[in-house]
């Protein structure tokens, strides 16, 4: 018989206000193997912990139950405390009498007291059969995979590399920069976006600790925190980048032109081209769906003209294997697809464009060299309508959330428009102006006051073409009047959505996404950059819409988290996981199928199923599904569980 | 010390009693109000149209003439005070307009006169403690509600009279007379001003709200600093009675009238007969007349 | 890991023990570096400890925070200096010599067991700052029963011994003889390689709002006060009772942008958190007082975080009345508070006779930040927030190498953004230290 101690916490009035803690302590103290049963106002406080430590030593306790708040709060606290008193920490258990008792039964004091005693008795049943366990130690790999070469991925990579860690940076496109490379200037300082970005990109390509994989995607990932094995799928560019020097002669001779998606279809690009001029790395890529060689072998002009013999029409995709200890997902965002916005004529009316397209127009290196010209006829628009919340804050039809950055970039765009076209009139339809970052409100008010941007509070119901103008039907809820504007150009601030393929990527990484496809953080307040899977971290708009400042903070934050994670030699994991009674296991494999963490695997040689200790999260699915009762969970055995249930019924 | 004094239209005519009382009280307090010679109307509103320099000429002239006679100009009427003080402020700050006006008027006034309301003279120059000492008939804890109105307080940056949201100067004055000032939220709300000419029913409603607010806080009398406010609050009570059947009348006094009572002036010289709501019964009850 | 060969000290100092400072300290500590955490109050936890629940999940703030404060207190690499202030900093990244004033607590913390007897017996009560003046504290006090460290200090401006040389009750009652009235401030000197400033925020005092009664109407309170009213550990044990007479308010008005977005009179910037916490307040109130009505005056609703917009919409659907417009004036009207506002969507003036008014006052930096910026040699903006090196790309760096910013000291932000910001600052410190290995 073990010598057990029970410690009942008042949690101020949180528990003691409902549960008669004195009575509980007294009654529990009468149980035969309970050698010590006391109550105290705050067990988690230092004097409370001291009470536990002293009791363990004085009464030579062999098991401890702390009746207090949820184990997610203070299980660690008390396990550490008993350990310093020389007890194995896994002999300490929490009986949750706050969340599961006092808080929900505030009006039923007697019943709550009785229930508290039952919860404690059940927990005692568990402790009576708990084993002494040691945390599992695992070696770790110190390299890091960063997925996404936008400002988030770039920032995380550089921070990690500067911290001395090897980084594999995987970017889907042919160059770094992400959406930030498409921007003209950034709010609220109106500093040009590109120069700062370029400096970072150049630092990345020259950094000895960063290996950059462009035109690449994560194909496969196995393993667990500290020990991931990854396969990177590097797609053929049909150009030998070790030879290409970015001279651009191939681009000059390429006869195929098609709308550039980087320029949001406002400009043209060639079948062999840079992602954008001055991109990093400054290397060209052949687009096989456009290239005549790949259509009918009719053209090899680029190959002929290349002084470095870099064109390789027979280049093949590569699969590259790497091992990493942690992974950052920085996959960024897309804009809501235009095909789905019928009422705004988007996609049909050439002079209705989205915010990114307008950014390209404003960029000095963009399709119009920074001139604001409407796509249909190249004229300077004099009546300029911006519409915010397009597909955002629209729970019934589109996205319920706020896209967070549109208010500010619209204000910036309106300001830049007015500066370029002083006799033009910008109108902004908005619902609420959200300028909540540092210096944002000031920027916005200045824009309205000094640039005469007309803000109209209300949505736009319809946009259509008439008499060479784009008719906009909106409302100004402040006068309560309908508004009609014959616009020359309409810019839609469309909703930010997670970039394509994030769902599949998340599934590969066992990270979770919400119903809109944004990656889910471990805790919205306290763990905003951790995913729910250990070793997987989130940076940037893949987690939720955010501006550059917040993205950079978050990216640095992931780098910090990872450095802390990888700074030790071993990772320790709770040993409260499944194990197999090899003598009972029949090797049916049901558990392998059912395990959500790929922690179960068949050992065909021995004809049994085994447990990967590092992958197992102790969820118990295999235990419930095993027809032979061959699996058990450490310190939550069937016997323990049944005894606990017996206490209640 | 004597002070240059600008009476203004109303105090010179229809509210002569307010003016006379102030002059008499001043003498009892040891100074004299010297009427500005050849004074003209101040214009009765400060022009809010920024392009209207014409309306600034009368107050500018008053200021320039006063400056020839002394350093401080005082008024009793809150509106005159507002117009003259704001014009002074503008002439001080706006070089361009100052030049234009000086040129047009063939004068050279720099905006360096000190413009004080009579209450400010009492506080800053005489001192409320002195007044308290000189009071002959302390007001016996008369529950008096000090109504500031708008013109003394706003715009705060130009008038600098007292805190614009919760002024206390008037209360201090009443306390020095032995009254018990009643704080009431409407003491800084507008009485309707010249709307008693434009939209009398609106002014009536404003007066109703102010008076009921004061009475709710236990006021026995409302005291005002402006002849127009006094008119709106006092003379309009008969109109209020027609619009609000539950309304009870309350005497409204000009501050100099109350000062006169406390200084022991003969009540017959205070012009109570001109008050629409007779204050005599109240003052009798308090043993003040 | 201490100092490397070239004298670069791999130890960080974090100034401010709120959620930002705690997060940064734990991150740096977990990375294997030593941390000095300096907090001016007697215990860590900061503003978050005053909060009841947090948006948008309505999680209990204390329950989220306490494990973190406990972890900080027990972390082998974090050394706490509470009730302390940084008074001097010299040197440069890798080798800052810092002086910390450890204020006299008049309690020997080495001896003190945190038993709490002294607080129980102390006869001197006064309005507690932690409870925003609505509850009573003692002259010898800890900020909360779960304080980390759980050691009391004596407030000399309220202690009878210090005021009149009488009493000495705490000294008599203390079972370990820890009270020491003779204790004096001490200056200690430490060497650190990097510094994170995380001193948090203050609220613009309601005494500054003349049009709202200069803080003299007892039932006009600020957002933090409402947090305390709503908090289970607060002065009303979580019941919504108004300060003046303890009645349950049935008409509650919330006024956003009080002192924010007001370039002419107060602060031009947006305080970023008020829209969300006001919506949260409204909901928590409504959950407790079903028959009550909430009115929220706002200018623009700013719910830009993850799940925030959804939270706001839900709030409206629960019957909370949002009125788009400012409030011009508040004054007492008998037992009620008259609120003169406007609904710009109907264009009408709105008058509400409220039982309780909650002002979402502007977030401002602590007064002491100015002096601290001078000590650290880093720039400060017009309003007293510390300035980051680059608004976009270096949001946690300052223009001095080795000094970083975390949380609201750089500008108003909510807990999630503060934590990410603090994580980022910690990351920069780790990178800095790693560069010198």
């Amino acid at each position, binding site marked *: 018989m073990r010598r057990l101690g029970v410690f009942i916490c008042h949690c101020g009035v949180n528990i003691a206000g409902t549960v008669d803690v004195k009575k509980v302590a007294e009654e529990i103290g009468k149980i035969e193997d309970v050698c010590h049963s006391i109550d105290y106002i705050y067990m988690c406080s230092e004097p409370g912990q001291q009470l536990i430590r002293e009791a363990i030593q004085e009464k030579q306790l062999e098991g401890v139950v702390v009746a207090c708040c949820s184990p997610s709060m203070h299980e660690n606290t008390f396990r550490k405390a008993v350990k310093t008193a020389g007890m194995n920490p896994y002999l300490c258990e929490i009986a949750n009498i706050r969340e599961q008792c006092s808080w929900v039964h505030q009006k039923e004091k007697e019943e709550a007291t009785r229930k508290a005693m039952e919860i404690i008795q059940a927990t005692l049943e568990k402790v009576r059969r708990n084993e002494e366990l040691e945390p599992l130690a695992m070696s770790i790999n110190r390299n890091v995979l960063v997925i996404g070469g936008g400002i988030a991925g770039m920032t995380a990579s550089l921070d990690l590399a500067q911290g001395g860690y090897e980084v594999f940076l995987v970017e889907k496109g042919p160059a770094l920069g992400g959406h930030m490379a498409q921007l003209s200037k950034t709010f609220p300082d109106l500093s040009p976006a590109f120069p700062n970005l370029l400096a970072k990109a150049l630092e990345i390509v020259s950094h000895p600790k960063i290996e950059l994989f462009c035109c690449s995607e994560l194909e496969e990932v196995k393993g667990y925190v500290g020990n991931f094995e990854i396969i990177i799928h590097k797609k053929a560019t049909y150009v030998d980048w070790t030879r290409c020097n970015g001279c651009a002669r191939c681009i000059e001779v390429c006869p195929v032109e098609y709308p550039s998606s980087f320029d949001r279809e406002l400009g043209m690009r060639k079948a062999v081209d840079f992602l954008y001029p001055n991109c990093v790395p400054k290397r060209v890529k052949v687009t096989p769906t456009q290239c005549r060689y790949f259509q009918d072998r009719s053209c090899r002009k680029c190959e002929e003209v290349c002084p470095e013999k870099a064109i390789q029409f027979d280049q093949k995709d590569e699969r590259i294997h790497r091992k990493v200890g942690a992974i950052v997902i920085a996959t960024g965002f897309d804009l809501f697809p235009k095909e789905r916005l019928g009422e705004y004529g988007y996609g049909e009316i050439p002079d209705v464009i989205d915010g990114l397209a307008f950014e390209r127009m404003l960029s000095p290196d963009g399709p119009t060299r920074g001139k604001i010209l409407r796509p249909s006829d190249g004229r300077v628009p004099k009546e300029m309508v911006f519409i915010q919340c397009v597909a955002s804050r629209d729970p019934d039809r589109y996205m319920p959330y706020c896209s967070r950055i549109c208010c500010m970039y619209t204000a910036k765009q309106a300001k830049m428009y007015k500066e370029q076209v002083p006799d033009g009139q910008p109108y902004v339809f908005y619902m609420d102006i959200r300028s909540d970052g540092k210096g944002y409100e000031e920027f916005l008010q200045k824009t309205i006051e000094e640039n005469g941007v*007309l803000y109209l*509070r209300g949505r736009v119901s319809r946009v259509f073409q008439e008499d060479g103008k784009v008719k906009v039907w909106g409302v*100004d809820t402040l006068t309560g009047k*309908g508004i009609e504007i014959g616009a020359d150009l309409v810019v839609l601030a469309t909703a930010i959505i997670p970039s394509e393929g994030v769902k599949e990527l998340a599934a590969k990484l066992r990270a979770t996404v919400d119903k809109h496809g944004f990656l889910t953080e471990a805790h919205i307040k306290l763990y905003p950059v951790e995913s729910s899977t250990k070793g997987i971290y989130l940076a940037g708009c893949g987690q939720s819409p955010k501006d550059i400042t917040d993205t950079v903070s978050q990216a640095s934050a992931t780098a910090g988290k990872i450095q802390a994670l990888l700074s030790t030699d071993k990772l320790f994991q709770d040993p409260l996981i499944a194990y197999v009674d090899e003598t009972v296991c029949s090797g049916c494999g049901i558990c392998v199928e059912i395990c959500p963490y790929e922690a179960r695997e068949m050992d065909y040689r021995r004809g049994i199923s085994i447990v990967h200790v590092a992958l197992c999260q102790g969820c118990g699915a295999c235990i419930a599904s095993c027809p032979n009762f061959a699996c058990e969970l450490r310190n939550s055995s069937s016997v323990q569980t049944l005894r606990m249930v017996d206490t209640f019924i | 010390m004597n002070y240059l004094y600008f009476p203004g239209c109303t105090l010179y005519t229809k509210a002569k009693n307010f003016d006379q009382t102030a002059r008499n009280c001043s003498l009892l307090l040891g100074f004299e109000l010297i009427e500005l010679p050849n004074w003209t109307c101040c214009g009765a509103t400060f022009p809010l149209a920024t392009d209207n320099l014409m309306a600034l000429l009368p107050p500018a002239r008053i200021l320039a003439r006063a400056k020839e006679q002394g350093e401080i100009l005082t008024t009793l*009427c809150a509106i005159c005070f507002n117009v003259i003080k704001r014009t002074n402020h503008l002439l001080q700050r706006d070089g361009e307009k100052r030049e234009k006006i000086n040129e047009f008027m063939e004068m050279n006034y720099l905006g360096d006169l000190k413009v004080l309301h009579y209450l400010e003279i009492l506080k800053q120059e005489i001192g409320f403690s002195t007044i308290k000492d000189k009071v002959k008939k302390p007001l016996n804890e008369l529950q008096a509600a000090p109504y500031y109105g708008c013109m003394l307080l706003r715009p705060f940056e130009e008038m600098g009279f007292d805190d614009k949201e919760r002024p206390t100067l008037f209360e201090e004055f009443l306390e020095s007379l032995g009254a018990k000032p009643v704080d009431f939220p409407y003491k800084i709300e507008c009485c309707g001003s010249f*709307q008693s000419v434009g939209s009398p029913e609106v002014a009536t409603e404003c007066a109703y709200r102010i008076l009921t607010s004061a009475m709710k806080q236990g006021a026995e009398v409302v005291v005002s600093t402006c002849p127009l406010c006094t008119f709106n609050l006092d003379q309009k009570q008969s109109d209020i009675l027609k619009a609000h059947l539950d309304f009870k009348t309350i005497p409204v006094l000009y501050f100099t009238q109350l000062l006169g009572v406390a200084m022991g002036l003969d009540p017959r010289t205070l012009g109570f007969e001109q008050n629409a709501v007779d204050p005599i019964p109240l003052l009798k009850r308090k043993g003040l007349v | 890991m201490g100092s490397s060969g070239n004298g670069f000290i791999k130890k960080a100092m974090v100034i401010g023990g709120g959620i930002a400072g705690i997060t940064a300290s734990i991150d740096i500590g977990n990375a294997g570096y030593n941390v000095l955490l300096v907090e001016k109050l007697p215990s860590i936890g900061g503003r978050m400890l005053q909060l009841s629940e947090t948006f948008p999940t309505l999680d209990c703030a204390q329950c989220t925070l306490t494990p973190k404060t406990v972890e900080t207190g027990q972390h082998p690499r974090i050394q706490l200096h509470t009730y302390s202030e940084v008074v001097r900093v010299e040197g440069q990244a890798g080798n800052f010599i810092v002086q910390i004033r450890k204020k006299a607590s008049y309690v020997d913390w080495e001896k003190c067991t945190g038993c709490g007897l002294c607080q129980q017996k102390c006869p001197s009560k006064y309005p507690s700052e932690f409870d925003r003046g609505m509850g009573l504290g003692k002259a010898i006090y800890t900020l909360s029963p779960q304080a980390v460290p759980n050691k009391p200090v004596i407030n000399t401006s309220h202690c009878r011994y210090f005021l009149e040389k009488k009493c000495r009750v705490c000294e008599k009652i203390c079972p370990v003889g820890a009270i020491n009235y003779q204790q004096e401030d001490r200056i200690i000197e430490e060497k650190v390689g990097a510094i994170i400033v995380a001193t948090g925020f203050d609220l613009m005092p309601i005494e500054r709002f003349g049009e709202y009664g200069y803080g003299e109407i007892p039932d006009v309170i600020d957002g933090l006060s409402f947090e305390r009213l709503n908090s289970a550990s607060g002065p009303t044990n979580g019941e919504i009772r108004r300060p003046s007479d303890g009645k349950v308010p049935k008409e509650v008005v919330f006024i956003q942008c009080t002192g924010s977005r007001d*370039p*002419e009179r107060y602060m031009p910037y947006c305080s970023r958190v008020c829209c969300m916490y006001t919506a949260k307040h409204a909901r928590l109130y409504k959950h407790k007082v079903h028959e009550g009505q909430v009115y929220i005056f706002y200018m623009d609703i700013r719910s830009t975080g993850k799940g925030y917009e959804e939270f706001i919409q839900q709030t409206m659907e629960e019957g909370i009345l949002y009125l788009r417009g400012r409030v011009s004036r508040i004054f007492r009207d008998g037992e009620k508070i008259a609120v003169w506002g406007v609904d710009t969507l109907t264009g009408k003036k709105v008058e509400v006779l409220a039982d309780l008014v909650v002002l979402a006052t502007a977030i401002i930096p602590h007064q002491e930040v100015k002096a601290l910026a001078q000590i650290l040699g880093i720039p400060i903006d017009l309003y007293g927030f510390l300035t980051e090196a680059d608004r976009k790309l270096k949001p946690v760096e300052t223009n001095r190498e080795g000094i970083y910013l975390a949380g609201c000291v750089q500008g108003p932000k909510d807990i999630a953004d503060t934590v990410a910001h603090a994580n980022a600052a910690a990351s920069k410190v780790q990178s800095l230290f790693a560069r010198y290995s």
Partner: protein
Amino acid sequence: MKIELSRDKVHNEFAKKVEWISGQNLFACYQCGNCTAGCPVAFAMDLGPHEVIRYTLLGLEEEVLSVNTFWLCASCLQCSSRCPKGIDIARVMDALRMVILRKKERRDYLQISEFPEGFLERVPQIAFISGFRKFLS
């Protein structure tokens, strides 16, 4: 109920005139409504001061000039003293009066001849002098 907007309309002569006379930037108004909230005569107004500013900005000249708002304004300056954007709203109200009173034809808001008998004798000078300045061409 409907406004057709164009840049000419936004930069309409009427709004410009009001801005010129008042010296205020109407674009600075962010429609918080503080002016209306604190206005002592708002109860009798057709439109609140904030709405008048909005209507003016949008060039709704006829509608604005037909409301009683600026005629009811008593220039008490409560709105101006509390405007978070520092707009002197009372000046905007006066400017609107001026727009009408300064027209070529006399546009008196008050007809002295219609005053009740003995009215002018009863009312203090200050009331009708300031009233005449505000209401007469």
